[in-house]
C-alpha cells in the first residue's frame, strides 16, 4: 500500500478523473440524487427545459430553439458537475478501499483446539472464524481476523492497515496486544484470540468508511441542508411568482411578453444555492480523506466535526508532551571548576552508559561545548557500570603506566556525597542550593565527582518536545484548553506543565480520575477530546466527545474510540481538530459565497427577462450585457462552471489559520461574502463577451 505515491497524484489523476466521470453519470439516477434535494430540483428543471426545447424545435414558436437548447445543456452540466464533484471526492477513498480489499481475500487460519502454541490445529477459512476462537499465527502467516495476542510476541507488518512498512512488536499482556486482521507476522509465532466476527473487523469497517457506503450525514450537514432546501423552496416560489407578476404587468402596460418558461427555469437554477449543494457531499468526503492521508481514520463524520468544536484537550504527558525520558539539559559546575571541565568529565563517565540519560549527557556535552566523545580503548580506561550497591557509574582513565589518572563517578547526590567523603573530600555547600532548585523544578540532579572533588551537577529532566509549546499556544488562540495527564507527582507535573505551557494538569492520575475529569468538563458544557492507548484508558475514551485511540493500543481502547490514529502519534489530535474546523469552514464559506452570488445573477437576468415590458428596467443591466439571451446564458453558464472551479477548494478545504473567532469571521466574510458578490459580476460579464465573440 503505497501511501506516498497516492498523495503525490493529487486530485487530477487521469485515472481517478475517468472513474469519477463515469460515476457522475450513474449518480444522475433520481433514486440516488434524492439525497441531494437541491440538485434533484435542478435535474427536474433540466428535464423540463429539455422537453421545452423539443417542443420549441417542433412548434417553432416562442424563443429560438438554440437558446432553449443551450440553457438545457448547461442545466444538465450543472447537475453533472455536482455529481462529478462527489464522485471525485469518493474516488480516492475508493482506490484505497480497493487495495485494502485485496488484502482481505480469504485467509486460511490455524484454529487451535487448546490455547497453546504447540497444540493441535485445524485449517479454517477466516470467514468461519467467530469471536472467541483461538488461532495460531506463525512467521509469514497473515493474521486471519482482529484479535488479541494471548501468548507470545511477534514482529508484525501492519502495512495493509497503516501503510507503514516498518514492522511493529505485538505481544501478550500490556498495551500492545491487539492485532488486526490482514496484517502479516514477520517473525516468531503468537496465539491470538479472535475478537471480531466476519464483516465486523477493523478492516471491514475501514473499507466501508472509506467507500462512503456507510457515510451518514452529520447533524450539522443536515442543518445546513435544511437551510439550503428552504432557500430553494423560496426561490422556486419567487420564480413562480414572477410569472403572474409579469403577466399582470404586460397586460397593464399593454406591451412586452411575460417571462418564458426557459427564463423562469434559468432564474430558478441560478438563484438556488447550487454551488454549495453541489459541493456539500464532496466537502465531507474529502475531509475524511484528508484525515486518511494523515493516517487517521474517523469512525464517523460526526467525530471529525466534533473535533472542530473541542475546547478541552486531554493529553498524556509521556510520549505526547515530553519524550518520556529524562535528559541532561544543563551543567552546573562546583566552585573552583569550570563548566568545560565538568562537561568533559561527565561525558567521559557516560561513554559506556547506554541508558537514555547517559547518552543525553554525551550529546549535551557535544552540542554545548563541542566535546567529541573520545574513543578510549580498554587499555586506556576502565568503565565502572552502574551498580545497585554504589548507585554510581563512572570511568577510571589510566595512564600508559597503568596508574589511575582520573577517577570520575556520577550518580545520585547522596551517593556521590558519601563517595567523596569516603575519599576524604566534602560536598561543596554552594551546590546544595542548585540541587534543591533542580528537585523543586521536577528535575533530577546528578552529581559528578573526580576522586575527592565534586566537579558539579548535571541537570536531568523530562524534556518537553520541540514545537509543542507553540502548538499549545496556537490551540489557546482558537479557544482550546490543554490539560496534561500524568502519573508524576504534583511537583514534577507542575514544573512540566509550566514549561510546556499547558493550561492545566492532572497529576498522579488513575483511570477513574481521568473519567471524573472528563465528566466534570462535560458538565460545564465543554467538548472534551482525549488520546489513549491502554485498556485502562477505555472508559475515559468512551466518555470523551472525541476519542483518539492509537493503533498500537489495545482492542478495548480501539473499540471505545471514535477516531483511530494509525501512526500512533498523539499530537495528531491537533491535526484532527484542524481538519474538523476546515470542513465546517469550507461549508460555511461556500454557503455564503453561493448565496452572495445571487445578487449579480438577479442583475443579469431580471432586466433581460422584463425589458420587453418595461424598457426602463434596463438601468438594472449594470454589467451592460449585450442582449437578453446572452445575459441569461452567461448567468446560467457561470452558475454551472463555478462548481468545477471550486472543486479543488472543496476537496482541499479552505485554509485554516488560527486566529480569534472575530477576526476569522471578518476575514472570511470579506473573502467569501464580498468576493461572492463581486466575482459573478466579473464572471458573467466575461462570459457575455465570450459568447458574443463566438456567435
Amino acid at each position, binding site marked *: 500500500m503505497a501511501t506516498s505515491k497516492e498523495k503525490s497524484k493529487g486530485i487530477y489523476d487521469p485515472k481517478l478523473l475517468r472513474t469519477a466521470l463515469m460515476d457522475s453519470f450513474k449518480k444522475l439516477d433520481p433514486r440516488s440524487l434524492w439525497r441531494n434535494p437541491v440538485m434533484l430540483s435542478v435535474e427536474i428543471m433540466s428535464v423540463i427545459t429539455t422537453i421545452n426545447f423539443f417542443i420549441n424545435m417542433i412548434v417553432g414558436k416562442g424563443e429560438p430553439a438554440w437558446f432553449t437548447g443551450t440553457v438545457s445543456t448547461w442545466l444538465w452540466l450543472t447537475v453533472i458537475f455536482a455529481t462529478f464533484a462527489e464522485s471525485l471526492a469518493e474516488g480516492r477513498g475508493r482506490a484505497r478501499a480497493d487495495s485494502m480489499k485485496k488484502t482481505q481475500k480469504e485467509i486460511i487460519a490455524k484454529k487451535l483446539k487448546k490455547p497453546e502454541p504447540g497444540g493441535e490445529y485445524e485449517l479454517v477459512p477466516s470467514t468461519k472464524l467467530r469471536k472467541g476462537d483461538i488461532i495460531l499465527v506463525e512467521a509469514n502467516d497473515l493474521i486471519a481476523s482482529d484479535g488479541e495476542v494471548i501468548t507470545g510476541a511477534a514482529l508484525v507488518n501492519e502495512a495493509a492497515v497503516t501503510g507503514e512498512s516498518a514492522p511493529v512488536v505485538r505481544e501478550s499482556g500490556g498495551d500492545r496486544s491487539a492485532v488486526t486482521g490482514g496484517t502479516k507476522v514477520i517473525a516468531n509465532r503468537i496465539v491470538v484470540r479472535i475478537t471480531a466476527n466476519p464483516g465486523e473487523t477493523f478492516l471491514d469497517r475501514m473499507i466501508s468508511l472509506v467507500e462512503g457506503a456507510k457515510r451518514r450525514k452529520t*447533524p*450539522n450537514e443536515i*442543518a*445546513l441542508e*435544511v*437551510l439550503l432546501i*428552504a432557500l430553494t*423552496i*423560496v*426561490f422556486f*416560489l*419567487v420564480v*413562480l*411568482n*414572477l*410569472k*403572474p*407578476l409579469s*403577466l*399582470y*404587468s404586460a397586460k*397593464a*402596460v399593454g406591451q412586452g411578453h411575460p417571462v418564458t418558461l426557459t427564463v423562469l427555469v434559468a432564474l430558478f437554477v441560478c*438563484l438556488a444555492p447550487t454551488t454549495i449543494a453541489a459541493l456539500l457531499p464532496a466537502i465531507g468526503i474529502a475531509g475524511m480523506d484528508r484525515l486518511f492521508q494523515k493516517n487517521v481514520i474517523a469512525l464517523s463524520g460526526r467525530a471529525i466535526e466534533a473535533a*472542530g*468544536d473541542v475546547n478541552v484537550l486531554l493529553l498524556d504527558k509521556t510520549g505526547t508532551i515530553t519524550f518520556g525520558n529524562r535528559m541532561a539539559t544543563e551543567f552546573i559546575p562546583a566552585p573552583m571548576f569550570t563548566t568545560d571541565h565538568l562537561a568533559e568529565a561527565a561525558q567521559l563517565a557516560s561513554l559506556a552508559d547506554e541508558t537514555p540519560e547517559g547518552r543525553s549527557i554525551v550529546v549535551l556535552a557535544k552540542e554545548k561545548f563541542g566535546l567529541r566523545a573520545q574513543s578510549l580503548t580498554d587499555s586506556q580506561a576502565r568503565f565502572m557500570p552502574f551498580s545497585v550497591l554504589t548507585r554510581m557509574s563512572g570511568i577510571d582513565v589510566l595512564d600508559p603506566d597503568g596508574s589511575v589518572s582520573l577517577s570520575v563517578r556520577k550518580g545520585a547526590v547522596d551517593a556521590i556525597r558519601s563517595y567523596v567523603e569516603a575519599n576524604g573530600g566534602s560536598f561543596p555547600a554552594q551546590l546544595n542550593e542548585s540541587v534543591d532548585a533542580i528537585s523543586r523544578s521536577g528535575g533530577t540532579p546528578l552529581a559528578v565527582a573526580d576522586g575527592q572533588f565534586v566537579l558539579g551537577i548535571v541537570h536531568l529532566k523530562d524534556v518537553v518536545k520541540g514545537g509543542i509549546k507553540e502548538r499549545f499556544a496556537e490551540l489557546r488562540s*482558537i*479557544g*482550546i484548553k490543554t490539560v496534561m495527564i500524568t502519573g508524576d507527582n504534583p511537583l514534577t507535573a507542575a514544573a512540566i506543565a509550566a514549561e510546556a505551557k499547558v493550561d492545566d494538569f492532572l497529576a498522579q492520575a488513575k483511570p477513574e480520575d481521568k473519567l471524573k475529569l472528563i465528566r466534570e468538563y462535560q*458538565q460545564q*458544557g*465543554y*467538548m472534551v477530546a482525549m488520546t489513549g492507548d491502554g485498556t485502562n484508558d477505555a472508559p475515559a475514551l468512551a466518555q470523551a466527545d472525541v476519542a483518539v485511540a492509537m493503533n498500537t493500543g489495545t482492542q478495548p481502547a480501539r473499540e471505545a474510540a471514535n477516531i483511530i490514529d494509525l501512526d500512533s502519534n498523539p499530537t495528531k489530535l491537533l491535526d484532527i481538530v484542524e481538519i*474538523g*474546523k*476546515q470542513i*465546517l*469552514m469550507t*461549508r*460555511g*464559506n461556500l*454557503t*455564503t459565497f453561493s*448565496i452572495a452570488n445571487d*445578487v449579480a445573477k*438577479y442583475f443579469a437576468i*431580471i432586466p433581460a427577462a*422584463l425589458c420587453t415590458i*418595461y424598457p426602463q*428596467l434596463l*438601468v438594472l443591466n449594470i454589467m451592460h450585457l449585450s442582449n437578453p439571451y446572452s445575459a441569461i446564458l452567461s448567468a446560467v453558464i457561470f452558475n454551472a462552471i463555478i462548481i468545477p472551479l471550486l472543486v479543488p477548494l472543496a476537496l482541499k478545504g479552505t485554509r*485554516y489559520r488560527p486566529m*480569534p*473567532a*472575530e477576526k476569522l*469571521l*471578518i476575514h*472570511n*466574510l470579506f473573502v467569501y*461574502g464580498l468576493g461572492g458578490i463581486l466575482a459573478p459580476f466579473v464572471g458573467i460579464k466575461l462570459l457575455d463577451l465570450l459568447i458574443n465573440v463566438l456567435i
Partner: protein
Amino acid sequence: MQNTELFLDILQILVFFSLLTLVAKFLGRYMARVYQGERTMLSPVFAPLENGIYRVTGIDKNAEMNWKQYAVAMLIFNCLGMIVLFALLLLQGHFPLNPQKFSGFSWHLALNTAVSFTTNTNWQAYSGESSATYLSQVLGLAVQNFLSAATGMAIVIAFIRGLARRTSETIGNFWLDLTRTVLYILFPIAVVAAVVLVSQGVIQNFSGYKNVSLLQSTSYEKPKLDADNNPIKDINGNQITVKIPVKEQRLPMGPVASQEAIKELGTNGGGFFNANSAHPYENPTPFSNFLEILLILSIPAGLTYALGRMVGSSRQGWALYAVMLFLLVLAIGVQYWAEYNGNPLVQKIGVHGYNMEGKEVRFGLGGTVLFSTSTTATSCGAVNAMHDSLTPLGGMIPLVLMLLGEVVFGGVGSGLYTMLAFVVIAVFVAGLMIGRTPEYLGKKIEVTEMWMSVITVLTAGVVVLLFVAIALITPTGVSSIANPGPHGLSEVLYAFASTANNNGSAFGGLNANTVFYNLMTALAMLIGRFIPALAILAMSGSLVKKKYVPPSVGTLPTDQIPFIIWLVVVVLIVGALTFFPALALGPFVEHLIMQGGI
C-alpha cells in the same frame, strides 16, 4: 426655509432616538423584572389583583409548562378571543352603545376583522366611524389590542427562557405571562398615555356623532340620476351634474383616547377612525404625534434590553437593538430623501418643494417620515399619512420594512422573536465560517433550531409570494386594483406584505372589502401569525433542554460589531433575494417611469 425644516426634522429624529434608547433601557429592565417574577414598583398595587385573578380563574401560580402545553394554551386563548370578537362584530346591531344604529358586519368582514385583531395585525377592511359600534370598539377591538399584544410578548418571553434556562423542560406559564403583561406593562402605560393624549385633544366620549355648521359653506357636484339610478348624460355623452351645497359637517365621536394609547403601545395599529392617526381626534398635535411614535417603538425596543437582562448579558440585547436601530435609521434616511426630492412631474407644473401629497401639514415631513417608517418597521400599522401618496421609492420603504419580516423592532414580542430566528440563521452560517458547530448564547444550533428558524423567517415571505401570485391571476383579485400598472402591483403586494407580516397598515387604492380579499388576507394573517409563533415555541422547547456551552476565544461573539454587521446583511439579503423581482416590477419601475417623465 426648507433648510430650517430639514434641520428641525433631523433634530426631532435625533431627540427621538436618544429618548427611545433611554426608554429601551428602563422599560426593558422593568419588563425583565416583571417576567422573572421579581417585585417591581407596581407590585403593591397589582400583586393583590394578580393573585385575585389566579384565585378566581384557578390558575396555579407555580405550575410550569413545557412548550407544547404553552402552545396549546396560547392557541386556545387566541381561538376563543377570535370567536368572541367574530360574534360581537356579526351581531353588534343587537347590542347597546350603538348611537349610530350600525348593523352587524358581513360574515367575511367580521371574520377578517376578528382574525386581524387577534393576530395583532389590525388590518382594517372596514371603516371605524361608519361601521363599528362603540361596544365593538371598546369591548371587542380594544380588548384584543391588549390581548394580542400580550400574546406576542408572552411568546418571546417563553423563547428567551429557552435561551436562558439550562437543561430544563419548561418555558414558563402562558397564563402568568399573559396576566403579568397586561397588568404590569400594557395597562399602566396605556392609562398614562391615554391621559396625556386627552390633554392634547384626543376625544373620549360615548355620545352620538355631532352635526356642526361649517364656518364657510361649500358644495360639490353630484351626478344626476334617472329613475333606474343610471346617470343621465347630455348630447355629448357628458354626465349631467347638480350642485349640492354643504353647510354642515357630521363629526364622529367616540371613546378614542383609551383605544389610541394601546393601539400604538401594543403595535396594533387599528385606528378608531378610518383616517387612523392622520385624524385630528386621534393625533391632534406634533407632540401627540411624537408620543405616539415613541409608544409604538417602546416595547419592541425595551424587549431587546429585557432579553439581554434575562440571558445575563445586556450587551447581547444592545447588539440586537443596534441592528434594528441601524435598519430603521437607514429606512428613515431613504424615505426622507425620496420625499424631500419630491415628484419631478409635479415640480414641472410649478409645485415646488417636497412631496406633501397625502401628508398632514401639522406633522411636517419629519413627523410623517418618522411615523410611517416606525409604524411599518414595527408591525403597528397605524398611519398618519397616506402611504399610497408617497413617492415610489418613499412608498417602497414601508413595503420593504414589512417584507423584511417585521424584524426592525417589529411587533411587540413577534419582532424580537422573528429577529432571533434570523440570529439563529446568521449564527449558523457565521459559526460554520469560523469552523465551529454554531451556538448562540451558549446553546448549540442544530437541526431542530434550523427548521424552526427557517419556518419563522420565511413563512411570511412564502405567503406573500403565493398570495400575490393568486391575486394577480384571478379576475376578482385584479378587479380591486384602483391604479393598474406598477402602482397597482405595489398595492396588491402591500396588502399581502401587510397582512402576512401582521402589520395591518394599508397602502390604499385597493378595494379590500371583498369576499376574495377578506378571506385571502385573513388566511395570510393567520398563517403569518401562528406558524412562526408555534415554530418559535417549538424551538424554545428544544433550546431549553440543551446544556450551556461556556464561551471561549473560539466562540463567535454575538455582541460585537462584526456580527452586528453580518446580521444586518443577512436580514437585508434574505429580504432582497426574495422580493427583488416584485419590487423591481412595482415601486422601482414606477420610480423609473416617474423619473423618465412618462
